[in-house]
């Protein structure tokens, strides 16, 4: 009996040893149960399309903490340093600091992560799309080129914003998918970024379609050839290549697919509230599932409002006006509402008189519309003039007047028939302020105006603050503006911290 026991005991020890040493890799391999693994995704055209839609969808909202969403920043980056917006209450400390000219690298308006997130999604689509051609037989080379063009155009749009706001930024063109990849990135030079944007837009222009042959709003919500042209027009204005800009505008105008929405009482409803009007070229599409952030900014939280003095400057009170409704449609009850403490009516009104409810706040954000093309063309003509040229000047003036006529612009803001280069540039600048009030354009317009021809017109930029800046801070704001580096925001401190000294601060903000 004793013998048997020993044997069993030995067997028993052996058994435990066996289990202790044998590999349990299978047992320890657990897949997450609440998501699709990357390895299992990117297998078909449908996957790629969902990925591409992710690039668009990522611009609407914010599902990572820290930074404001792309759609919010597209508006605010164009307004917070401009003169038309001001604070409603003192609750947004970071805005109060910007308003006082006290911008620091840890100001939350410098956080660009949502832009780079969208860029990474674009890069991922660009990287994963090619191999799908061999995996999904129904997926054609042409379809792939179309998707590629869209991703390139979105990426170009993102970098175009970044370079206008920060000047030099890191240029990331490869997808980041794992932690072995190099995550720190130094800044690229302005020339490199511009060259990349130009190349991406050229490539996109080659392959992108005119229409998606789907519901009409799809051609407004996804990038089409017209959007690429609009982007090129804007981009070449920024890079001071006016002939290219003008020709891009011409292509949109000649397409005949866009026209100005009637300047009647329903103008605000048709153009902004309902959206996707014949005037719209590219609009970020919000809906009930994803409300836009603007209603909260301008009404629920009431963080911002229009600056009353600046509104008065752009839309002076006309003592001879017959009735309120015959005023410039873009003034009171168009862009702002004086009766509601100068709230920004463009985003919170349902019509000229009625307020939206919070659950209706799904109006689109208009990135480009036809009026923009007209005024960009006018600016391109004017800026491209070597010397005053009455023929070309009148052409530009006509475009400005086309926009003004639609808006029933007041005679008080009419600058007459002057066709000199300087007069036209100034007229376009002012008209753009009126036309695109609070549409995220103002700061870029005035900066473009000021920096043109080697900062020849910088005084205009400095003068802009006379109405809107806090009086105690005016001199210090103006003196800072002498350094062109101060026209760009500082690189976010968190990124500098995380970059292991790869990323260098904008020299103006360096300690």
């Amino acid at each position: 009996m004793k013998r048997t026991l020993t044997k069993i005991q030995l067997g028993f020890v052996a058994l435990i040893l066996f289990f202790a040493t044998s590999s349990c890799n299978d047992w320890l391999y657990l897949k997450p149960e609440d998501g699709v693994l990357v390895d299992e995704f990117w297998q078909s055209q449908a996957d790629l399309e969902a990925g591409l839609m992710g690039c668009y969808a990522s611009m609407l909202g914010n599902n990572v903490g820290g930074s404001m969403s792309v759609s919010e920043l597209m508006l605010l980056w164009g307004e917070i340093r401009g003169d038309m917006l001001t604070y409603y209450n003192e609750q947004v400390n970071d805005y109060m600091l910007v308003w006082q000219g006290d911008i620091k690298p840890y100001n939350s308006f410098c956080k660009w992560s949502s832009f780079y997130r969208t860029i990474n999604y674009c890069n991922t689509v660009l990287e994963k799309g090619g191999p799908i051609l061999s995996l999904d037989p129904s997926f054609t080379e042409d379809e792939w080129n179309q998707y590629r063009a869209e991703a390139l155009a979105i990426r170009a749009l993102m970098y175009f914003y970044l370079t206008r706001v920060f000047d030099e930024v890191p240029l990331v063109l490869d997808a980041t998918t794992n932690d072995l990849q190099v995550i720190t990135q130094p800044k690229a030079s302005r020339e490199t970024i511009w060259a990349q944007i130009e190349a991406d837009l050229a490539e996109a222009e080659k392959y992108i379609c005119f229409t998606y042959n789907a519901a009409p709003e799809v051609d407004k919500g996804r990038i089409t050839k017209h959007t690429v042209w609009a982007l090129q027009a804007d981009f070449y204005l920024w890079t001071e290549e006016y002939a290219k800009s003008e020709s891009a505008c011409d292509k949109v105008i000649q397409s005949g697919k866009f026209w100005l929405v009637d300047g009647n009482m329903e103008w605000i409803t048709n153009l902004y509230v309902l959206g996707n009007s014949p005037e719209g070229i590219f609009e970020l599409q919000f809906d009930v599932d994803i409300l836009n952030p603007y209603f909260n900014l301008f009404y629920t939280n009431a963080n911002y409002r229009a600056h009353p003095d600046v509104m008065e400057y752009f839309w002076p009170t006309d003592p001879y006006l017959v009735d309120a409704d015959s005023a410039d449609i873009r003034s009171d009850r168009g862009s702002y509402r004086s009766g509601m403490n100068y709230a920004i009516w463009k985003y919170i009104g349902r019509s000229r008189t009625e307020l939206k409810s919070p659950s209706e706040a799904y109006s689109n954000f208009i990135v480009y519309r036809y009026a923009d093309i007209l005024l960009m063309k006018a600016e391109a003509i004017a800026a491209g003039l070597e010397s005053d040229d009455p023929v070309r000047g009148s052409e530009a003036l006509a475009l400005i007047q086309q926009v003004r006529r639609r808006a029933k612009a007041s005679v008080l803001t009419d600058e007459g028939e002057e066709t000199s280069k300087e007069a036209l540039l100034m007229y376009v600048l002012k008209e753009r302020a009126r036309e695109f009030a609070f549409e995220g354009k103002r700061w870029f317009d005035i900066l473009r105006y000021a920096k043109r021809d080697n900062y020849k017109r910088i005084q205009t930029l400095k003068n802009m603050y006379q109405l809107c800046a806090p009086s105690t801070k005016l001199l210090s704001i103006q003196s800072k503006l002498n350094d062109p580096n101060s026209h760009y925001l500082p690189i976010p401190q968190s990124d500098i911290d995380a970059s292991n000294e790869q990323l260098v601060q904008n020299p103006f903000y360096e300690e």
Partner: protein
Amino acid sequence: MNLNRSTMNKKIILIVLPLFIILHAAQAQKRIVVRGKVSDGIDFLPGVTVVELDKNNRIAKGTTTNIDGEYVISLSNSEHKLQFSFIGYKEKVVAVDGQTSLNIVLEEDVKTLESIDIIAQKITNTGMMNVEDRDLAIPVAKISAMEFQNVQASSIDEAIQGRLAGIDITSNSGDPGAGMSIRIRGVSTLSANATPLIVVDNIPYEVSIASDFSFSTANEEGYSQMLNIPVDDINEITVLKDAAATAMWGTKAANGVLMITTKRGARGREPVISFNYKNTYSFNPGHIPLLNGDQYSTLILEAYQNSYGVPLNTSIRREFLYSADDPYFFHNYSANTDWLEAITRDGSTNNYDFSITGGGTKAFYRFSVNYQDQIGTTLGTDMNRLSTRLNLDYFISDKLKMRADFSIAHGITNANYTDNSIKSSRGTDARSIAYKKMPNMSIYEFDAWGNQTDNFFSPESNAQGTSPSTYNPVAMVSDGVNRIANDRITTKYSLYYDIFEGLRYTLDLSFDVNSNKINRFLPQTATGKKWTDQWVNKAYDFDSDTYYLYSNNMLSYSNTFNEKHQVAATLNLMTNENIGSAYEIWTSNSGSSTQQDPSNPSKVNESGVGPKTDLSHGRSIGSALLVNYIFDDRYIINGGFRYEGNSRFDENNRYAFFPSISLAWRLSGEPFMSSATWLDDFRFRFSYGENGNPPRYEGMFYSNINSFDWNYMGQSAVYPTNMELKSLKWESIKQTNIGLTFELFKGRIYAEFDYYNNHTEDMFGYNVSVQSTSGFSTNSVINLGTMDNYGWDMSVRTIPVKSDDFKMTFDFNLARNYNILRELADNYANIRNETIGNGEYQTIAQIDNPAGSFYGYRYQGVYLNEDMLIARDAKGNKITDPNGVEIPMVYDYKNTRYFFELGDAMYEDINHDGNINASDIVYLGNANPLFTGGFGSMITWKDFSLNTFFYFRYGNDIINRTRMFGEAMYNYDNQLASTLRRWRKPGDETDIPRALMQKGYNYVGSNRFVEDGSFLRLKYITLSYRLPVKIAQSIGFKSIRASVTVNNLFTFTNYTGQDPEININSSDAEIYTVGYDDSRTPRSKDITFILAVTF
């Protein structure tokens, strides 16, 4: 997955199966019938139990005697024994030895011995082996039930706070059920999870609910239910401090092990019933004085004037109008409300504990029931808990024993409402809001005619803004709901089989089910939001279940050869598996503040609300071989190897190997020391061990694709959620310990000293910021660097006086930990806030410096005159520009260019350039204490005893953020009463700057808010009385004891904040904010009455 699980089940079966084969092999053949009579010498005894025992004393078969005392039993083996037992008689065991007839006389059982003096060595269970205390080569700390039986504590962590050397326990907050944070020998990792492994009766106790549950508050609540074991059930707590000691427990034990042994029954003991009642009264601790409504309004008007140069327009800010012409505002905004007073109260706790313990020869048991209810000092916080525990031991035979433990606890905690936006770490919990709430506001609304209504006054917005940064805290604590129901069922089964002398097989299986349900409701009456807003009547329901399975197969061997070689060895295979599933739903806009459950009609289909699920699944497996060898009772060597695998890693890094070794030399056992009879024990110890930590979350080496919550024009849109963590490695900890233990004069003095160095490599950092140009803002976890924790701890226990009636003990412990950062990964930001703003400190993680250092400006008071505003060089001469004009002092010339004015805060211009900027930032202090420790004394005189215990920390600094924001005078928040001393006009002499609304740099991080956090606290003082045994017995009791305890009676400190005993690690789990004190519920003074009876 199912396949994997079934393979594991097979493995367990395969291991268990041989056991039964062994049992059956022990059966033999010779059958025999035995008969006879049982008497007590006079009469025959009917009903006597007669059982057959095999050679291992296992019961094979049984019968009873008939009315004539006769029995017949057929035995399976003639070698077996017969056992006769009858109530009131002594049990008798008789060897059969082939006899067929056995007449038995039983003796009456007369108890003569009341107690036996047991002479035995104290034994410490390290989990795998029971080692005599005197043979330990590893650092341990121990505390037994005796030491905290009179202490009012709702959980063990509270009971052992300060009692053990090197163990730093602090409360997370003073709210009921809020949990404590426990650190053994400092923080060996930067990441928040440095909590030691808790082992209850040899089974790891999981303290977290599904740990990778992504909702950020989940961990807190899981933690609050931590250690849901009534203090009365605990027999002993042992703390294992270093890697050699924790080898058995593997990587989960990398931060040390807290081993808890619960009380069990004892063999051959009649039932003992005990009943304990505790009642505690907690006095409302009060708060730092704040401004009243009138003082506050004055401050605001002044701040506005100072900042903008014009008076506040009170026709817009009618909150400050104070005009009876506007009766609504006049009545609602002219109060002097003490908001904190309005949401606090005195608290109390009732604790009932009942237990019955006993045992026969084959089985023993302990059954206990505990009920506790607690009312917190903040309104709306309370806790109820009912728990039971049954511990059973059954001896099947001398060789085979089984054990089953069951414990079930049901607890309900009510807390103040929190969610991701209303959370204590962000300063939006009810207490923090009450601190800063405008005191000129009324709690209840007045109507336009000046009549007070029953409605809470919760305007949607006012000068302070909108909810959540301002809500009505009284409405929040009264109408808000945050109810956490926790049910935990832990069952544990063990089998012990002695294969032969010295070799034992053990099987432990444990099943742990932890269920949490959380209900929350955010009432409109508190936020005052518009009825269409999504914040209105937000309701939340959260359900999570975690199943935790544990198995351990172990073979252990111990033997002594030639009386000189003692060998003990163990080999084990341990598996863990946890499966969690959680479900939550948010709804909003229910019809009324009384409809508080998501099941009421409400909105669910908008972004921000709606359902969410989360699943988690994790596994780990480990095997260890440990050998302990003692030569001649003097030289002790202990070695171990452990191999461990975890499902949280990519396959390249899934397994890790951890060796350990420890040595001890008992000098007192050497022959030349034999003359030193006063020396009981004298031992040198050395140990070295490696251990590791897995990351907190599962499934991070995958990149997941998720859908957005919204479509883009009707088409689904997806995105990659995370980076694949391909390079993530185990966090490894190498621990070295050198120690000395001695015991003198028959236990009158016992002391232990240890020096240790814990070297952590590949330390984890969670949610580390990465350059967001990668498309990701953070990386969920990286191996970020190397850190050393070294230091020493000592523990001394003495009995200075010992006589028949009078005994006095004096114990103290002291520990010092240095926590030094050695290396940081390239992509880890070691500086944050290079330029600091108001309310911020620069945070630098500096190599070769302790984590938790503070950097900022040096505060020098207030600019009192024009002369001080002129910049000066190092020699004190005024600096002038080339034109000879004196240069004024300026804040951050390059960016901000703020010229200081009279009454502004003055910071030292370290580099004398007239410009206060980042280059003037200096080191200000350190959050690490020089010493922590405690001391206490127990004095017994006859039937009285007096127990006192002090707890202290010395030499640490705290950033008093309560004061920082309470003296900021920067916005519309209420301020501390100390701001009455503020600078107001030229000529004022003060150290508090002027009020400046949204302007200036008056509360930038400086040493003004860095305070010495040292304190000495009388943790408790207890006086107890035990009724003399004779008197107790005469009225039918075994013992009666009554005591009174006062907790936190007084604290000596210079710290001006609420409570110097702040949480050791930061609230947002960042190394950078260690040592920050935000307003919390301070510790209350408690008085506790205890009545304990046994019968």
